[in-house]
């Protein structure tokens, strides 16, 4: 395929063959899987969100020619390669436990009580291999099983809930739901409370900033931008 450059010369664009749900397409090299699918004529109604690797909506699995491994990645973050067989997995069916954060306790049985299937983990490590965020997924499931909520929360912090771990798990665990409960429990019951936050919330409630808020509401976007750029930034503490 050729296209005209600005100077009017013909320039060859490098193309690669990919197979979307088994059908072959030629797409420009260097595109992400997501853009390549759109180039091939697919339109995203579900399975695409932020297009920047944060939302976890565009889970994709693929194999490459001559490689038995099943790869799992985000379509918006992965470049197409010649001979790629792929399909999107925009959604993973999984039950999320129902709980009231104010009523449950954070103890060494909470996670396994809500998600007893974590006891089925055989440490095959398939989840970790599937994680596009390169998290130690198996390790946080193991931490969850032994009731180490803090460790599970820490190890799963960057989870974007794409569901690829759960789709690959032979023990049928919904890892990301377990991790979300671990982080919620950690945040509510285990993490040290920030005292200055409580103080600030109290100040807000007492109306200390009402006047300034009113002033800001009347500002133009340009004024707001100027104000934002000139704001004080606290030095980071180690």
């Amino acid at each position, binding site marked *: 395929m050729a296209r005209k450059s600005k100077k009017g010369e013909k320039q060859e664009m490098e193309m690669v063959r990919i197979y979307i749900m088994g059908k072959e397409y030629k797409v420009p090299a260097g595109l992400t899987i997501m853009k390549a699918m759109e180039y091939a004529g697919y339109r995203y109604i579900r399975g695409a969100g932020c297009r920047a690797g944060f939302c976890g909506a565009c889970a994709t699995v693929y194999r490459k020619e001559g490689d038995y491994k099943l790869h799992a990645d985000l379509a918006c973050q992965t470049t197409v390669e010649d001979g790629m067989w792929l399909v999107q997995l925009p959604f993973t069916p999984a039950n999320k436990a129902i709980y009231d954060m104010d009523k449950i306790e954070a103890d*060494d049985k909470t996670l396994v009580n809500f998600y007893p299937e974590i006891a089925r*983990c*055989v*440490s095959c*490590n398939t989840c970790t291999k599937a994680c596009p965020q390169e998290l130690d997924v198996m390790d946080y499931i193991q931490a969850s099983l*032994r*009731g180490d909520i803090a460790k599970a929360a820490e190890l799963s912090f960057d989870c974007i809930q794409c569901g690829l771990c759960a789709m690959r798990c032979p023990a049928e665990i919904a890892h990301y739901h377990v991790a979300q409960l671990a982080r919620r429990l950690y945040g509510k019951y285990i993490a040290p409370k920030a005292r200055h936050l409580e103080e600030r919330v109290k100040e807000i409630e007492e109306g200390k900033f009402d006047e300034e808020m009113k002033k800001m509401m009347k500002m133009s976007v340009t004024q707001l931008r100027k104000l934002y750029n000139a704001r004080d930034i606290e030095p980071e503490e180690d």
Partner: protein
Amino acid sequence: MEMGYYPGCTLKTNAKVFEDSLLKAFEKIGIKLKELNKWYCCGTVYSLATDNLMYRLAAIRNLIRAKEDGHEKLVAPCSICYNTLKQANLMAKSDEEAMSKINAFMDEEPDYDGSVSVIHPLEVIEAKLQEIKAAVKKPLGKKYAAYYGCLLLRPKEIAIDEHENPSIMERLIEALGGSVVNFPLKNECCGSYNVASNKEAVIDANYRIITNARRNGADAIVTSCPLCHFNLKEMQKEVKKVHPEFAGLPVYYFSELMVEAFGIEMEG
């Protein structure tokens, strides 16, 4: 002396007192148990099917971690963890075909060769009875029934002692100044995982085992398995509902007797 230490999930939860007392007691006799930097649930009960290698991955992965941490010996206090790790290690030494499959599947791990030896703390204790006697400050005054259950003794290949009539725990109790009672049901199963599906089996076993220990004059039962401990101790209230005359007995981990006799104060 330092040895690798594999806690297992339940020593971090229900059996925390087992972990705390064991680490303190071993420190007293000059052994530092160093927890593996990383470990996974061993899978508890060893898979018995010829072709079920999946359920043995976790055990092998733990042995790889032990080797990585530089341990020749790995101490596993929980009877079930001990049994599973030990059986998996025997497989690693003897079943080349199984290991080539496991090593190929775990392509992110170095191959494992069976070179770590899995041991139970009671085996360590056997060689340290003199030091233990010397460390006793408050000799135990009571009569104890040493309960081994199944998984320290069977299958024969992994037995820590004579499988029909073991005596390591009795020798420990005597070294600590306690006395032991004759206890025919010392190696009879507590019902194990039936507690999750068929509680009646565990209630019956509990009644039989504890009544047998009482009739033989025991003041308490001593064990090394967190599941036996749960089934024998926590299920006593259920036994009482079925057998109102049932009097029950306290149940301890052997390491709890050690810290008691050594006069070590436990927090909490």
